[in-house]
């Protein structure tokens, strides 16, 4: 079974995003960019399934600017076998990404596509579900456990108020939640090795998919700031304050 893992290059999760003064977006000039953390978990899960013998090949895909090649190299250094880079002139929305991925799936015929549940820039949480819808495949979103059993994937999902397990008929889509695994760091020898792993480069136009955006971001603003309040000196003072709020008796 082949596994396809889409990865996205995003602002590093340790960098505080700064809204541009002209309100057109978030400033991404000269800041550290990394693989979306949920996608790292997806790559790790695919590699583990290969190591367990449940998968034979891990193909990573990224859609975006040419620099997304760096993100794909990171995935190859972690242990993915081969990469496909699809360059686009402008940011592609989740629906467009899902349409491109559906084409990649048609070509690659994987048994499983594992995606991060959301990218930490747009926070859309859509692509996996959309891809599943376009392909008519089963979906196991927000996964904290994935087990392959013949033609079935048993996926434990993180849902409001607990966990839920679903059995998906393969081929299927899985999106990752935080507790699925802890991604490995690429070792130096593996980083060197990744440089010679194959990476195909294509453009969105090669797939004949209309990825023109449907949404326009008309304005980006800083969220309303909270004012720091008062510091109290003792538990007794805190209790008084809580009483005033009607919280304590």
């Amino acid at each position: 079974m082949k596994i396809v893992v889409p990865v996205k290059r995003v602002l590093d999760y340790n960098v505080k995003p700064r809204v541009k003064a002209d309100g057109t977006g978030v400033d991404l000039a000269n800041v550290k960019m990394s693989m979306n953390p949920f996608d790292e978990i997806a790559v790790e899960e695919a590699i583990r399934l290969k190591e367990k013998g449940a998968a034979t090949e891990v193909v990573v895909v990224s859609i975006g600017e040419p620099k997304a090649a760096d993100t794909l190299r990171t995935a190859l250094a972690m242990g993915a076998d081969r990469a496909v880079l699809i360059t686009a002139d402008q940011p592609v929305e989740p629906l467009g990404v899902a349409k491109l991925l559906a084409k990649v799936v048609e070509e690659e015929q994987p048994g499983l596509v594992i995606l991060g549940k959301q990218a930490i820039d747009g926070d859309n949480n859509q692509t996996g579900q959309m891809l599943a819808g376009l392909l008519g495949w089963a979906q196991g979103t927000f996964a904290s456990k994935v087990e392959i059993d013949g033609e079935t994937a048993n996926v434990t999902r993180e849902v409001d108020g607990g966990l839920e397990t679903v059995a998906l008929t393969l081929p299927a889509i899985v999106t990752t939640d935080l507790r699925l695994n802890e991604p490995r760091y690429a070792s130096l020898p593996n980083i060197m090795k990744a440089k010679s792993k194959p990476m195909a480069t294509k453009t969105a136009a090669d797939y004949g998919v209309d990825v023109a955006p449907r949404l326009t971001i008309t304005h980006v603003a800083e969220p309303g700031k909270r004012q720091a309040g008062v510091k109290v000196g003792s538990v007794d003072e805190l209790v008084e304050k809580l009483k005033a709020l009607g919280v304590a008796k």
Partner: protein
Amino acid sequence: MKTLVWVEHDGGSVKDATLATVTAAAKLGEVHLIVAGQGVGDVAQAAAKIAGVGKVHVADDAAYANALAENVAPLIAELMGHHDAFLAPSTTTGKNIAPRVAALIDVMQISDILSVEGPDSFTRPIYAGNAIATVKTRDTKLVLTVRTTAFEKAAAEGGSGTVEAVAATGDAAKSRFVAAEKAESARPELTSAKIIVSGGRALGSEEQFHALIDPLADKLGAAVGASRAAVDAGYAPNDYQVGQTGKIVAPEVYVAVGISGAIQHLAGMKDSKVIVAINKDEDAPIFQVADIGLVGDLFTVVPELTDKV
């Protein structure tokens, strides 16, 4: 505009997340509902009483028993033939289903809306709530998920909607519900609690987390939450997690114990009415958003507080 709202329910009653979603839908136009499930007659009757609701579509079929997206999305896609907007709350159920519906009807979903600015314009958080984007769509139909803490709840009583059965679209036979492990708790649910006591990594261990946080929460009648750091360290289960990657909450009072206030945590709780912070580091970022702060060692402060409230 004719809207269709996903009714979040537990098989017996309508969940509060539905009520906030109804408020968002009412800003766009007529509010119709879809109740999908098995044996959901009572839910449909209750949903019809929500203030401002028109038609309540009910799809009662075994295929919808566990809200599997593979079965529910085609049903909603069909109903979208005669509705202009589909709205679901940003719950794990809503987030699972809505994008699949959007793909089926070729619409770019707008996730987690905070406000309705116009018939085609909405605000939504990006970058973990560090920025708020105003987006305008050129799609003719809308698929939206709604951040429920950003909208007032519609009144659960007072409406007089009409209940109408809709034909089931069948079982896609792609997936099967196996089991649910619901976290059993006598405490209020995190996302609807009036008071929340949350613990962070400073608690040091799972035992200490429960020994300190649980009694204070119980004394206050509060729900228990945790920071991602505490969840990652194994002190608390993941469904306790408050933050951008966990639950978004906005209670009347949020008590943060031993939580430094990482961006991703603040994104999940900064809309709380009153934030109380207890931390031994007086420079912790949590104090920049807290209304009431107490600098002190939580291992002495929290038991004393539990004793005195």
